[in-house]
């Protein structure tokens, strides 16, 4: 990455550190995580086991929201402020601008996630902290997926308000309605959908992939089986490909949109 892109990464991080929406959602995340951990503390030695699944559920809702907020105005915000042309006129390619904005905002997202987990970890004993801290990596992957989606929506939109609306709709669709739609499909097809198909459909949604991978890791396959939940999840290589696709493909599409004729001037 060139000099301009590196400078843009630091600039983005500085700007996000002062973004009131990012600060508010980070504090909210830390508060809720603290609440979960403090409540789970009453379970004594089993605190981490009680706390971790609840944190997974919290993260599955909040992390995508924070990520979409961070990403939605990455490009369209510059366009509305009449500074996108200024950025593009620097000796830097458009894809570098997009990636630099993703990385800079991604670093801010990492800080937000670490603050949340840090707040939870404070309530646990040192022996139990690794269980909760093992959620950090997958949470960052979840955040990166939705941040990438947010940047794509930003590249595709003409106004910040439009990008914000699309971000909210995306959150509802992927976090709330996707699983309901899947359940509806299973009921409507009267079980015609195979377990493998359902497993793949769950995995293809980054929020679903996040939840099922971590539940598998935390609670164990047998416990899931007893609850009648899907256990034949795609392997680790397939899951890695899904993460990669969700992070890379929106950025590639965003770079393509930014390269359009009217992308900067209209």
């Amino acid at each position, binding site marked *: 990455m060139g*000099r*301009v892109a590196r400078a843009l990464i*630091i600039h983005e991080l500085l700007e996000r550190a*002062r973004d009131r929406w990012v600060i508010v959602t980070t504090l909210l995340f830390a508060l809720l995580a603290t609440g979960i951990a403090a409540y789970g503390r009453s379970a004594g030695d089993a605190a981490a086991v009680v706390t971790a699944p609840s944190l997974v559920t919290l993260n599955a809702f909040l992390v995508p929201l924070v990520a979409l907020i961070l990403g939605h105005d990455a490009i369209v915000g510059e366009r509305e*402020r*009449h500074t996108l042309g*200024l950025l593009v*006129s620097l*000796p830097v390619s458009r894809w570098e601008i997009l990636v630099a904005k993703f990385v800079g905002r991604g670093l801010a997202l990492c800080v937000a996630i670490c603050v949340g987990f840090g707040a939870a970890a404070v309530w646990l004993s040192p022996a139990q902290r690794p269980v909760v801290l093992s959620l950090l990596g997958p949470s960052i992957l979840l955040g990166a997926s939705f941040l990438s989606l947010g940047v794509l929506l930003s590249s595709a939109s003409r106004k910040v308000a439009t990008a914000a609306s699309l971000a909210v709709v995306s959150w509802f669709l992927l976090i709330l309605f996707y699983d309901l739609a899947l359940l509806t499909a299973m009921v409507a097809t009267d079980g015609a959908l195979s377990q493998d198909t359902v497993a793949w459909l769950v995995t293809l949604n980054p929020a679903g992939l996040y939840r099922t991978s971590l539940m598998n890791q935390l609670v164990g396959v047998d416990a899931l089986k007893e609850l009648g939940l899907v256990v034949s999840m795609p392997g680790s290589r397939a899951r890695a490909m899904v993460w990669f696709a969700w992070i890379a493909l929106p950025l590639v599409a965003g770079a393509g949109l930014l390269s359009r*004729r009217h992308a900067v001037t209209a």
Partner: protein
Amino acid sequence: MKLNVDDIAVRFGPVRALGGVSMALDAGQVTVMAGPNGSGKSTLMSVLLGLIRPDEGQVTADGRLVCDRSRLSTSWFRERIGYLPEAPAFSETLSGRQIMRFFASARGLPRARIEVVIERVGLAHAAARPVRGYSRGMRQRLALGCAILHTPEVLILDEPTGGLDQQGLAVLWEILDEWRKAGRTVLMSSHELALVERRADRVVVMVDGKVIAAGTPDELRSQSGLKPEVRIGPGLDEIYEELVGGVSWDVSPAH
């Protein structure tokens, strides 16, 4: 750096934004583009800045290709231009110094250069404050500072006088004079011709994507059919400069 704009045409669907525009931007000259909204001034600037590719024609700088229908403005050229967009709105939460720091880092400049430019554009007293507390004129001066940070060979200014008070205009005129004397190239667009006519070495008038007149202000005056006007006494801008510059005079009525 001498720029040659050769037969540049740009179409956006059925709309012809630029129709075969040609002009020469000489080193050591301030060229002002004038014309109504939609005349193609910003589109031509966008071509030079690498924001859009022309459909026809090419731009060269000192004989070296900058852009044509197959490519946007090269990196080499964009290293050498400074751009002031119309009414830019920088991040309100960052200070002027932090905004400039980004552009300095992007251009590989030392931090000491930032302080020199901040002083130059008259923002030393406000550089540490968030941009949200800046007036429109201060934001314009900040943008001007960002454009000249790396002492570009070509300055491209889109409506640079917007929002500037007399002090801000004085800073702008000084910078234009400095660029002219150093043999650098300036291209600016303006609606405020009365304000810029004394500073322009060449004026290019554009309408509907075409150049309809070009020349020095005196050449345009002699070509026009308008009657000459003689003004006796200083202009209001000169009176203001004298007042604000510290000299005040009593305007009490005669007894």
